[in-house]
């Protein structure tokens, strides 16, 4: 890992810590609790290692004398062993779109890119979940908890390179049971992979939250005159009168959001939007709300 990437990771981590510091630790309420061995805050309603009392059960031969709860046993003849509820962490996966369009920062090309904002939101959310004792990872990576995972996440996020193509979608094969997936992207390029991924997730019983991140230019379409629109991936559109296209564009965008929202609802997921012109905390608060809602 190069020093530059490390330092950019450190900067990203610092900004994310600052953003996440305003939020309480996030304990996930959505989605299933997976049967993992990692300790966490979610009871599995069965005996196991944990902190909360689960049940008294009769002791059998293998139990050591130390394991017997003498206080309960004194009330009868049988010896009882005090079992605790098996507690585990929930797992969250974060996916950030890597399409070339995510590098868009407006025509000035000097401001914050969509990718920067997406990383900030993703890492802030991850940090706040880690503080809540959850296990977080990037989609497709091994989940983990604690400070080590926070460092690993910030490194991974900072080192994430953009694809040459326009659109990006989560790999449907990466869908796992028992996790909450947070998808952050502009979702401008239509691809069947997204629907497939969401379908797989809902099939596993996992759930997802989609956050569409757009630049104000992409919402407002403030262009005029003869323009040749291009994307890094090679898409082109020539127009003589960009102003005349504004209404049509906005209609298309609204339709796209409609599509995404319907797709999410069908898969039991949630869909939200975020504008790059607004502060990142808005998106964080919304995500916090929907993930921690009882």
């Amino acid at each position: 890992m190069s020093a530059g990437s490390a330092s950019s990771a450190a900067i990203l981590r610092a900004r994310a810590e600052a953003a996440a510091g305003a939020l309480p630790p996030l304990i996930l309420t959505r989605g299933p609790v997976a049967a993992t061995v990692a300790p966490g805050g979610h009871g599995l309603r069965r005996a196991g290692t944990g902190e909360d009392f689960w049940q008294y059960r009769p002791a059998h031969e293998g139990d050591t004398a130390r394991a017997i709860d003498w206080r309960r046993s004194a009330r009868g003849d049988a010896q009882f062993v005090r079992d605790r509820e098996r507690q585990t962490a929930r797992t969250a996966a974060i996916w950030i779109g890597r399409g070339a369009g995510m590098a868009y920062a407006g025509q000035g090309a000097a401001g914050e890119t969509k990718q920067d904002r997406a990383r900030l939101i993703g890492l802030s959310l991850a940090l706040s979940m880690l503080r809540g004792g959850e296990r977080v990872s990037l989609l497709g990576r091994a989940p983990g908890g604690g400070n080590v995972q926070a460092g690993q996440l910030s490194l991974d996020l900072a080192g994430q390179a953009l694809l040459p193509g326009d659109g990006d979608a989560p790999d449907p094969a990466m869908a796992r049971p028992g996790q909450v997936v947070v998808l952050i992207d502009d979702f401008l390029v239509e691809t069947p992979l997204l629907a497939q991924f969401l379908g797989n997730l809902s099939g596993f019983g996992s759930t997802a939250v989609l956050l569409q991140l757009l630049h104000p230019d992409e919402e407002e379409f403030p262009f005029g005159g003869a323009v040749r629109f291009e994307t890094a991936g090679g898409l082109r559109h020539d127009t003589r009168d960009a102003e005349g296209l504004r209404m049509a564009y906005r209609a298309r965008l609204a339709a796209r959001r409609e599509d995404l929202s319907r797709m999410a609802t069908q898969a039991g997921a949630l869909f939200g939007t975020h504008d790059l012109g607004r502060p990142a905390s808005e998106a964080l608060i919304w995500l916090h709300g929907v993930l921690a809602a009882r």
Partner: protein
Amino acid sequence: MMMLGPIGFGAPLVLAALAVLPLLWWLLRALPPVPTRIRFPGTALLAGLRDPEPIARRTPWWLLLLRMIAVAAVILAFAQPVWRPPPPQQEGDALLIVMDAGATAAPGWNAARNRAVRAAETAIAAGRPVSVLLADGQGDAPLIFAADGSVAATLRAAQPQPWPGRYPVADAEMFADLPDGVLRTIWFSDGLDHPNRAAWLAALTGAGPVEVIPQAIPATSLSMIGDGPQPVLELATTGEQAPDILALGPDPQGIPRELARLSPGPPRREGGVTIRPVQVDLPPELLGRVTRFAVDGVESAAALVLGDDRLRRPVVALISEGRATSEGQALLSPAHYLRSALAGSARLIETGLTDALSAGPDVIVMMDRVGLEPDGPLADWVAEGGLLIRFAGPRMAAAPDLVMEPLLPVRLRPGGRDMGGALSWGAPRPIAPFDADGPFGGLTIPEDVTVRAQLMAEPSPDLAERSIAALSDGTPLVTRAGMGEGRLVLFHSTANADWSTLPLSGLFVEMLDRLVSSAGTRAAAAEADPAQAQDGIWTATEILDGFGRLRDASDPAPVPQAALAEGPGPDVPAGLYASGERLVALNAGGPITEASWPGATVETSSTPGLPLAGWLLLAATLALVADLAGAMVLRRGGAGGVTAALLLVLFMPDLSRAQEIDPDLMRAANAFAMGYVLTGDAGLDETSRQGLSGLSHTLTARTTVEPTSPVAVDLETADLTLLTFLYWPIGSDQPVPSAQAYLRLNRYLRGGGMILFDTGDADLAGTGPDNSADLRRLAGPLDMPPLQPVPDDHVLTRSFYLLDDLPGRYAGGEVWVEASSARDGTVNDGVSPVVIGGNGWAEAWAVDDRGLPVFAVGTGMDGERQREIAHRFGVNLIMYVLTGNYKSDQIHVPALLERLRQEEGG
């Protein structure tokens, strides 16, 4: 060439393309401007959307205009416009070459002659008859038009003559041989009017076009308009420059050198000629040594004034009785003191009285001599203005009839007077202070000067008036009296130390100087001036050539005085003429008048015609840059980016060039390429390029040396270390390179490089490599080894081909290389660092872009053979440069093998 006002077009057909402009205007109007390009990820959403109402966007009119201007400028540029182009050369049916060949034509003669030879050869090669008219005042034979080599031979043999040029009478007889058709005339003029010139011009302009080529260096004439102790020279020139005048002569050691440098005075214009007086204000002893005045930097007989008797110091004849042989006797002889005293300021003749009178001296000095004839030749001489100085002495004192002695200023009393002797009462007398108005006024008298004996004058009323120096008791020491136009002076004492100590003092020298300088040289000058002297047969001792070089007259014919008085001419070349003791200089310089050329085209020295193509292309480029900027303004609407782009466009090339080595030189180092020196003469440079290209082709075809195209080398900037071989044509236009350039050249020569100097003048005079003044000027500062003509067994003659001769366009010229004696210990591997010749090799090698020869060499098959040999010489030369002494070792291979065989056998 088509003319539109002052602009000529070399390719006028290209102008037809201007008709496309309206079409282009319409097309550009119809085409929309280029759309703005925007990166926008939302493009995915735009797919398939249609413009609600298509708007036709048009290019703004000023952008259109810019583009139109750019295109029009490019079209005009390719039509090869030339501002005030040189008038087209008309090739007539015959060619007449007129050359001024007088003394004023000497500067720039070689250049003019080479041009004439080239013009003649070109015309002969085209089958046109050529004739030559040399305005040297010699021949008045009718013009002979010929198309063989005799014309070029005549031209090559022509030299400027040491007399003013003159044209023969232009009558019909001269044109008897004139072929039918148009006669083209090339007139190599020195810019001056010569007799019969106007008539010739009128006759020739009637016969066809006349092209006048003035000589590059303005004609200059130097003449003496005033003589005497402060001569006045007159410098007349057709140019604006005022070169210094050098006074040349032997220094006290007898070595000729520049004695003084005189600046011309204020100019005045007269008939197109600038005339400047030159005051020769030199001390008499310096002026006396001057043998000639020359104009600095102009080699011409007309720019030279030879000194003769007019310039010399006053001639003093010392009438003596022969020299004493031993030193002891010399100190007793009065002549010794006089010689010593007069040597600095006068020219002494020591001879008998008769001989002295025939030499026409200014002053005659006689020591202690009596018995002169009262009305003999001496008296006549004095009466005509001579100064006779006599000294008293024992013989005069003892003369019985001293009272009757003629040619004395005062009457003398016989016997004389002794003071301070053993038998006299008085002490030796000092000299009384001189009269301030007298000839000795202002001289200081040393205290130890005393007079012991003197001759006394008879008292007379005018004695005091005649006495110009006296003793302290008032008795006269020096007396003076007039006689006719001349004067008589008597020293009442001796010229040696017998009677007084005066001859031992510096006062004696000063007194004699005063007296001699008071002697009028007018009579003597009249005697020496050829225009005024009426008699005498003169014989040339030394004569000038046209370039102002003195040489001994080989077979002088005696010239009567009258011929000499008419000035220099074919029979009387300028030079020094002697008659007995008299010496007179005949100078070629004189009044000059600028010539006018009605009806002829005069070639101006400035570049004929200014090509405009480059400027037009520049304008087109600027218009396109402005167009780019305008388009960016349209697209972005911002000015910052435009400025940045403009700066980028304007300064990018400079930045990149500053960091790069010249790609040509890089190529020369990478793949062998020959270099040629840029001389500043575009024609010469082009010839060099074509010549080396031709040689490169030959080398590629015949040998394993495969040179790339030749590299032009600017001596001031190029890095010579990357080159191996440099061709340097000597042109008169090339300025002398800077000292830094010579340092680099010397380093280049020491580091194994070679320069081929080519004067291109075929070494016509046969005087060796020093012939060309330009070569001397340009190659002088180089670190040259001793040179020798190429010996028969030199490696250069056998490094690839076996050659007997090393011809170029001209054959037979001597080629010089480093002398073999100097070769030991050189670092160049035995390769001569320079090869010098004048055979015009580049012209023989030159090929055009199609590979065809550019210049004619010789005539017919012989010429082609000569060209082939010239190519072979080139191959040999490059082989010699590249292989060093390897090839010279190859010469010894048979001997080495022989020795090996012997060693094996033994």
